[in-house]
Structures are given as C-alpha cells and as structure tokens.
C-alpha cells in the first residue's frame, strides 16, 4: 500500500492529481462505511488549499473530537450529535494550511473515553483484519481508515493509549510526541494533563512527516512547547549504534503469565525475537526490574486522574450555550435532563467516579494519591532514561479482541501488560507503536517510549527497527487496491 512519500512522488510526477486522490479516498470511505463504520462524516467537497509541503494534496482522516469550523464535530456523543464548531483546532488548521485534504471525521469511543471503538453514538468500528474483532480505541475510526487503505495517514488523540493501542491492533504505526509538542487547542478535552495529539501512518517516516507539520508552539495553548530547530524526517535515518534500550522484566517475563492464553505467550515470544533483532542492529538491550507495586498502580492511577479531569472538562456540556436542549421546570432540571439523555451509561459512570474522586472528603485519598503515584512513576522512568535512550515493550497482551470478549476476566498481570502505555501519558513521553508481525493472522505491535523532548530519537529508533523487521505499509490483501 502506498505511503505518503509514494503518493507525493505520484503527485509531483503528475501520475495522479489531488482531485483524483480525494475522489478515490471518498469512494473507498463510502464503500467500507457500512461494514466498518470508520466515519461520522465523509466529506463531499475537497478543501482547495495547496502548499509546497510534503502533505499538499494528500488525503487524510481526522478524529471527530477535533474542532473543525463549519464541519459537524460530535466526539461520537449524542450530546454533541448536531454540534457544528465555529472555530478550527490548531492541528486541523495546520494540516489545512499544509494542503492536506480532509476525507472525513472519524468515529471514536464516546468523548474519547474507552479503548474498544464500540461506544460511539453512530455504532461500533470493526477491525479491517477481522470484522469480528475490535480495532481498539478510542481513535477507532482513524485507525480503521488507515488500515482499510482509505487514507495514508490520520489524526487521533491519545490520553491512555488511544492511538498506540489501535495502531497495534490495526498493523499500523501510531505516534504521540512529547506532551506539548503538538497544540491541543481545539481538541475536545478528555483529561487535559494526559491528552496528546498524534497520528496513524503506514510507516515511521510518514509519522515523522505528519508530526513535522503538526508540531510547534501555539499561543493558544500555554502547555505547547517552544519550537525546535529540527525536522524529524532529517534525523530518522541517523546511526543508532551504541544506543541503549530496556524492557521491564515484570511485564515481559513469560514465567509470570501462568494462566495466560497461548496468544499472550506468542506475543511475548515474538517480542523477545524482536529484541534479538534489535541487538543485531547494534542496540544494547537490557532487562530491568520495575517496582511491581508501581506497575499494578498504573491502571488505577490512570483511571483516577483521567476520570477526575474528564468530569470537570465535560461540565460545559449542559445543553445551555450549545447542544440539545433539555427539558424541565428549572435551570438545574434542564441541565440535568440534557446530560441524562446526552451521555451513555458508561460515560455517566466515569463522571460519577470522577466526581467522587474530586470530592473534598475523598480528594486527598484518591486524587492526590494518584497524582503522587504518577509523579513517582515518572521519576522512576526518568531515572532509567539517565542510562537508557528508550524503553521497548509489547504494545498489548493480545491481538485485537473479539467483540464479545469479556475484559473483566483479565488477571492483574495481564492488566499491566495491556495498560502500561499510560506511562507515556503520565510523563508526556514521546511514544510510538510499530507493527511487530502477526499472531494468529492478526497484527501485533511493539511500543517504543523515550524521554520527554526526545521525539527525534524515538522516531529514529523506531525507523531503524521498522527497517530491520520489514513490517512496513501493512494492509490486508483485499484492501490493497
């Protein structure tokens, strides 16, 4: 399947026009929509803006939680089902200015909360590699759109692993750079201190191209980082000899997974094979031990902080300034009704949880302790980054699950394996998932997470490993048209 660079070449050599690319993408989007449900909105008109950037004329898909002026933006929630923003998010604006062509707005788990791609108000998103399996979430539609070959890249948001997990399930590259590298202005907030903007692509180079366009300081986002004088595409081929990687024993040691299924063991085997490949490439790779209690705390810490922030961030959804108007005799009843009807049960559960966590009598024990744990975990990581250039781990403990898979049967250990990528959000670390082959005919991924601000290095490492592994531009044969 063609990468951004392939399409760039075709466009530059006039083998194809951007109008044709757009038309093909739209056709594919419509063809696969009923079956896979990638999109909330498929565009019918092409944005006519050209530039001399690498992305000019290249079609892409945008997660439906990025504000797009004049284009419906629902966050896959009923409470925003008719919401048409009046302003552009910075990420969208930058892509528009670069001449990238929006194909559609993609389905997510409602308000980006969830990791299954099954909770959006317009229905579930299916995995192109197996229709009976999830693609994962919350950036489900953005992952599916690339995995189906509709677009060569797409934009997602990542609060726990919402880009990097579906990337693994879809055989894609999923990258979120350092917190603040890309402006969050216009991204519908889930948990502001954990939210990142990132992208899906078919190869590391494409992810670097897209990030080069998206990154940069934004006066509208006080947490955005100062500009760096570097283009990631210029450095991803740098020599990596002598670089040091580590993986965590408590996450990857097969002997700890006594009750685990065949699938998980195969994934761990595959991971170890890849570690050997890395060593052949010239990396030093060490196994390090990480406090098991901290690892067990990862998921609870994440849920605590993200639910609390989400409760506050979504308090603007009352149906008063915008959104479907509730009914009732008093202003409180009106807001209550709008929120009762507008959110699914899952979302309400998170808000109640978040509200409980922030209550005065619980805040110290729950919220503040979670913040302390986050701090301790990040400190521990930064300690390791003094010795190592990056951490490498399996992106998931299994392949994309079937829709009827019951998550609550998972063991503690499996939960760590399944959720460790939140470390990247805790520390705002640059983190990338790249394909690591297949298990049971389904794609799996490995994740590489570096020190904050080391975006270039993480892309460099990932690119070298991708080269060595050869899982580049993966797509299921029937969609490779």
């Amino acid at each position, binding site marked *: 399947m063609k990468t951004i660079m392939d399409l760039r070449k075709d466009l530059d050599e006039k083998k194809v026009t951007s109008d044709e690319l757009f038309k093909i993408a739209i056709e594919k989007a419509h063809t696969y929509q009923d079956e896979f449900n990638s999109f909330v909105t498929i565009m019918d008109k092409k944005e006519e803006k050209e530039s001399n950037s690498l992305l000019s004329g290249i079609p892409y898909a945008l997660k439906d939680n990025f*504000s797009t002026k004049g284009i419906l933006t629902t966050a896959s929630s009923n409470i925003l089902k008719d919401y048409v923003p*009046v302003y552009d998010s910075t990420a969208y604006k930058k892509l528009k200015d670069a001449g990238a062509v929006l194909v559609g707005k993609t389905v997510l788990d409602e308000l980006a909360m969830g990791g299954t791609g099954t909770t959006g108000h317009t229905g579930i998103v299916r995995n192109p590699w197996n229709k009976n399996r999830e693609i994962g979430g919350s950036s489900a539609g953005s992952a599916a759109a690339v995995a189906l070959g509709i677009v060569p890249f797409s934009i997602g948001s990542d609060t726990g692993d919402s880009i990097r997990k579906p990337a693994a399930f879809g055989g894609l590259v999923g990258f979120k750079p350092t917190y603040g590298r890309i402006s*969050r202005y216009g991204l519908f907030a889930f948990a502001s201190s954990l939210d990142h903007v990132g992208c899906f692509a078919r190869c590391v180079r494409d992810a670097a191209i897209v990030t080069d366009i998206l990154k940069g300081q934004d006066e509208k986002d006080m*947490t955005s980082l100062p500009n760096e004088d570097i283009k990631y595409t210029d450095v991803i081929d740098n020599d990596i000899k002598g670089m040091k990687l580590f993986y965590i024993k408590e996450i990857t040691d097969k002997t700890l997974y006594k009750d685990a299924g065949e699938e998980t063991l195969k994934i761990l085997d595959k991971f170890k094979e890849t570690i050997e490949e890395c060593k052949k490439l010239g990396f030093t790779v060490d196994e390090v031990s990480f406090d098991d209690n901290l690892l067990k705390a990862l998921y609870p810490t994440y849920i605590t902080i993200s639910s609390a*922030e989400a409760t*506050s961030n979504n308090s603007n959804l009352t149906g008063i*300034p915008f959104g479907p108007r509730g009914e009732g005799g008093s202003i409180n009843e009106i807001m209550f009704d709008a929120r009762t009807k507008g959110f699914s049960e899952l979302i309400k559960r998170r808000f109640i949880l978040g*509200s409980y966590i922030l209550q005065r009598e619980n805040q110290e024990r729950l919220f503040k302790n979670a913040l302390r744990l986050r701090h301790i975990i990040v400190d521990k990581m930064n300690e390791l980054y003094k010795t190592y250039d990056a951490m490498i781990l399996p992106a998931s403990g299994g392949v994309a699950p079937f829709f009827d898979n019951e998550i609550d049967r998972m063991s503690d250990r499996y939960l760590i394996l399944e959720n460790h990528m939140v470390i990247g959000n805790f520390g705002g670390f640059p983190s990338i998932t790249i394909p690591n082959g297949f298990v049971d005919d389904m794609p799996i991924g490995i994740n590489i997470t570096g020190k904050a601000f080391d975006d270039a290095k993480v892309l460099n490492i990932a690119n070298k490993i991708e080269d060595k592994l050869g899982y580049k531009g993966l797509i299921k044969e029937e969609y490779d048209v």
Partner: protein
Amino acid sequence: MYKVTIGLEVHCEVKTNSKNFSSAKNAYSEYPNENVSVVDLGLPGILPVANKEAFRKSLLMALALNCKTPDIVMFDRKNYYYPDLPKGYQITQETKPVGVNGYVMINVDGEDKKIGINNIHLEEDTASLDHFKDYSLIDYNRAGVPLLETVTEPCMHSSTEAIAFLEALKGIFLYTGVSEARTDKGQMRVDVNISLSKDDTLGTRTEMKNINSFNSVRLAIETEIKRQKEVLENGGVILQETRRFDEDTLTTHSLRSKVDAVDYKYYIEPNIPPIKITDEWIDEIKSEIPMLQFDRINKYMEVYGLSRYDSEILVKDKAVSDYFEECVFIGCNPKSISNWITTSVLGYLNKNELDIKDLSLTPKMLCELIDMVDNNKISSKQSKEVFSKCLEENKEPNIVVKELGLTQITDDKTIRDIVTKLLDERPDLIEDHRKGKNTFDYFVGQVMKETRGKANPVLTRDIINEEMEKR
C-alpha cells in the same frame, strides 16, 4: 451588649485590554454578547491563555495590600454548574493566591486601625443573567473578565469600619490603576459576613452576597446586626447560612443553609503551566506602587501641617493629590495651595463636572498665580478673577493679569509721587487730620482713583502715613 464581627469578600474587576483567559475585549458594552470569544463561551476544545497584565496588576494589588506573594503563578478550577458559568468551572486561585496575610490601614474617627487581609486571588467573572417571567437571557460580555477577590479577616466591628475599609480598598484600586472600581457598573461587589457574640469567641456567621454599593453594604450590615440581636435576645440561635438583603424593606431573608453548601471540588488547572515569579519582577512591580492615601494623609498633616479634613479632601482623587504634590514640589506654600485646591479648583471642577486632568491651569500656572498674591502683585480678590479668566479663556495667569491691567503698583516712588501731589493739593485736609478728623481714607481713595485701583493698598497706606507725619 453583643460584640459585632464583620469580614468582607470584595470582588473587583481588573482593568485590562483583554479578558483573563481569552483575547476578547475586556470592556463594558451596552450590546449583549459583543465582547465574546469561543473561550468565553466554553466551547469544546478551548484552552485558557493567562493574561499576563491581569496577573501583573493582581501582584501589584497584593503588594499594595502588604501581602506575601507566591513563588509561582498557579490557578485552580472551582467546579459547579450554573448557566452563567459556561465551562462548568471557574478558573480561580485556591492553592497559591496572588497574595496572603496582608493588611490595609484605615482611619476611623481619627484613630488608625489595621485591617487584616486573609488573601487576595485572581479569578474570572461569570456571564450576567437577566431574569424574566418565564425565561432568562445570558450576556457573556462579562464572562472571563479578570476579577480580583480580596478576603479580609473577620476583624471589623461596625458598619463604619467596614465602609472605611471599603473606601480605603477602593482608593488603593484607583491609586494603583488596577481597577476603576466603579460600583455603579458592577465592577466592585461585596460579600458580607457577620456574627455576634457576647465574648471574644466568634459567633455563628451569616453571609450576604453580591452587594453593589457601599451604602447598601452599610444598610445590610446594620439590618443584619439588628436581626441577629433580636434573635439572640429572644433566646434563638443564629444559623450558618447565606441571606439575601432586601434594600426596599430593610430586611434579610434566608437563601440557603450551610448544609446545602456546594463542594467545589477544587483542583489545579492543568492547562496553565506554573510560571516562576522572580524577585526582579516583584521589585519592578513594587517600584510602580505610588504612595497611597493613608500615607499621603499622614504626610500632609505631619510635614505640611494641613488638617486631616483638608488632607482627606486632597487625597480623594489621586490626580488631585498628585497635582497638589507637584505644586508643592515647584515650591509653592503647601497651605496656600491646599486652600486653593480645596476651594477654587475643586469647586470649579465640581461645578463643571470636570476631571483635574481636564484643567488647563497647570500646577506651574497655579503656583504663579498664588505667588502674585503672596508677593502683593495682585490682590486676593483679583486673583479669583484671574483664575476664572484663565480657565475660561485657556490662558496663563500672567497674560490674563496683563490683559486685565491688574498688575499692582508696588513701586514706592510712583506711589509716593502721587501721594506728595495729593497732599500738596489739600493742605487743609492734613490740618483736619491733625485735629483728629479722619481724612486719611480720603487720600487712600484718591490714590486708588489716580491709579485705577492698581496701587498696592498696604504700601499706599504706609506712604500716606509717612508723608503726613513729615508735614
């Protein structure tokens, strides 16, 4: 007897170009929803951008209130649902207010008193609601306007003290230029906490919120004191609650009790990274604080010998006080200048509803005018005429004096020549004078007639006296 204890929370809008966290204009508008950005509306995806000027002015105010300032800029979220709060939370300061543990000096009936400031913090104002019979309208013009909340210690014991504090606070806002502090525009709003007790322990307090004028504050305090006293005297108990003051009936009514108090679930605003406040910045801001009213009054009384009454009039408006000080700096007599300002200048400004900045008469000119009187160049009566003409015709005093031909004849020889001539003409009247008849005033009148009133009267009398003695 009950001891009354009062604590105040004063909200005051900060004067800035743009709002606290958005680029929308911070300005009063008669058109609803004119100065509104997507940030003020709390639309999905918006982020706050802290207004540096609002924070600088808040620091300035904190320092002017003798507060301890924090090491970093930090904001918190106060979470609650209300239609005037579009985001569903207010960005405020709970963890690290811009100032803590300060004080303001006030003077009540000639006695100095220190009013403790618990903290002062920067937050954003809400939208304003207009309620009608079966609907309400929201105006977002005010949403996001920087708002400074000053919280006093419960340390005032009468409405007089409370009003004196409010006047002093307003004065500091005006002197520092942090706010225009106009109560008539709702820029300054007061929450009052009152409790009564028989001993030194604090009684149960009630709160009245959002009182819009100082006079209403005074009435509210007195009304609530009276109510609490009656309740206690009848053996009742005061409930901790929020009450509404009804100015028309001079009564207060229970709104909600403490049991219904909202848990605001404060937590740190994640979208504004902490920014360090450097010592250099603090020093720079400190240097911008002018001498404030309380200190100026003391200076005028102690150094210039003015009365408290006059000093208080002079410092009421900083521009007037600055005008006065410039005159003193030029070298004019402080008492003379004080008299001039408190009577003629302020009288003129009040009558014409003008600001001292609109006055065409500069301190230098006013000093010239006063000098002319002090040096007998013109009479005190003439000076008033010159003053009016200067302002009417926008001219300098010396020019007006020349035009009116008002310059006094203070030259000894000129007057003496006239006197000699007059005495020579009427030796009979000199004779009458010696016999005890008053003919002196006749000669004075003649001199004035000859000089068309320009001869200096004191000098004229002296010369006539001398010349008559000689004969």
